[in-house]
């Protein structure tokens, strides 16, 4: 029997694995008077990958920000169903890992300090070994003590993955997942997506044909 856990609470308890679902019901978003998209409904379960595609300005990033709870929809409802409990995205930070070009970490801190900080505020116990392993996994082994100000854009993108995977979230939201990454970085992303698909939900916003193949479901926004 696995150990029971409360993803949103702060106490550990014990049970077997928990099924997660993402429910999007009639969701719409707009900027001022200009509607971006409307009436999007879908449901995802653990093991499924959704790819969101569409032309520039069609609302791919906005859709992911709605799923991350960083923005509120103008219409409809989004919920994460975990067991019998439904959570609004704004209360589901512990369930979510988010990688996006506009995700910024602290440039004045080193990669290790950043990860230690986010582990602390997520109330995780992570020793240096676990952080080193995570940095190694995203291809930043040996660069953990460099400040982010000295990182290239590709390295910063890799660190975003470390940030997103820190708490092993059941839902991974990836906006332009391989932007600024080299071939080895893209391979890291492929491995991360493959691993995540085994036990959780992945949502990818992209127009890259190589990334469209990840999708079990395709959501096309815009015309």
């Amino acid at each position, binding site marked *: 029997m*696995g*150990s*029971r*856990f*409360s993803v949103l*609470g*702060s*106490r*550990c308890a014990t049970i077997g*694995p*928990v*099924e*997660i679902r993402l429910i999007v019901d009639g969701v719409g978003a707009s900027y001022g008077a200009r509607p971006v*998209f*409307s*009436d*999007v409904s*879908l449901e995802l*379960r*653990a*093991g*499924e*990958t959704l790819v969101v595609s569409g032309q520039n300005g069609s609302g791919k990033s906005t859709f992911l920000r709605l799923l*991350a*709870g*960083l923005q509120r929809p103008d219409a409809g409802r989004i919920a994460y169903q975990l067991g019998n409990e439904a959570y609004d995205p*704004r209360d589901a*930070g512990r369930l*979510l890992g*988010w990688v996006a070009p*506009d*995700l*910024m*970490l*602290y*440039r*004045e*801190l080193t990669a290790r*300090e950043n990860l230690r*900080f*986010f582990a*602390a*505020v*997520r*109330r*995780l*116990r*992570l020793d240096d070994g676990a952080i080193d392993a995570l940095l190694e996994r995203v291809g930043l082994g040996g660069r953990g003590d460099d400040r982010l100000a000295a990182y290239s854009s590709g390295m910063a993108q890799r660190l975003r993955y470390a*940030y997103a995977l820190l*708490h*092993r979230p*059941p839902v991974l939201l990836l906006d332009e997942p391989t932007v600024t990454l080299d071939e080895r970085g893209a391979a890291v992303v492929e491995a991360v997506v493959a691993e995540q698909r*085994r*036990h959780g939900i992945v949502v990818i916003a992209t127009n890259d044909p190589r990334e469209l193949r990840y999708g*079990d*479901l*395709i*959501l*096309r*926004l815009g015309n």
Partner: protein
Amino acid sequence: MAEQSKPEHSSEIEPQQFSLLDAQLSMLAAAWAVFIKDLRVELRTRYALNALVLFAACAAVAVSLGVGFIGLRRTDEALLIQATLLWIALLFAALNGLARGFVQEEEARTMAALRLAAPPIAVFLGKFMLNLALLALLGAITTLLFIVMVRVEVGSPLAFALVLAGGSLCLASATTILAAIISKASFKSALFAVLAFPLLVPPLIVAIQGTASALDEAALPAALASLQFLGAYSVATFVASLMLFRFVWEA
């Protein structure tokens, strides 16, 4: 608008590998982590520190050149003038530096990462602790400069320190929530000053009166009423800020 095709499989989530700490202690630990992170960033960039210290030093020099060498006789009016000048220096230095906590998160675009990871209360408490620490440092530096350059004599150091602490608590609680509010606005500095004015004037008046009493020699009983007001005001502002912060944070 949306096309959808169904997959053939689904699987279950594995239990989390990392254990989670006890709720309340872990909230304080998270707040402490925010404070330490902000302190570390501040020590490396010195945005707020430079603004606070430079403003305090400039104010002390300007005041010393204006009234410091006149040799004011130690009358009640003179004590009130010295207390007023001290708090004006503290207030404007604080307004210059204390909004940085949230504004910097917004400008560096790190707000989203923090929002996803940290509980709102931990963020507020961490930023509040940083503002309090900066104000303690600012209070110490400004007081020292005023004692040396403006020849302020402190009659009752205990009452003086308590009034300074009470006034700083009021400033820190009010400026922390205001900084969160203005961080998403344009014209941040102007808005900060406008919003801070009505919130900070009542405790400022009382702090000035309390400080003037503390500069006098038999001061502790005289400063007691000011201390009670400052304590109550800072608790009220702190509690109201805690209750409001989640709405500001998620706006």
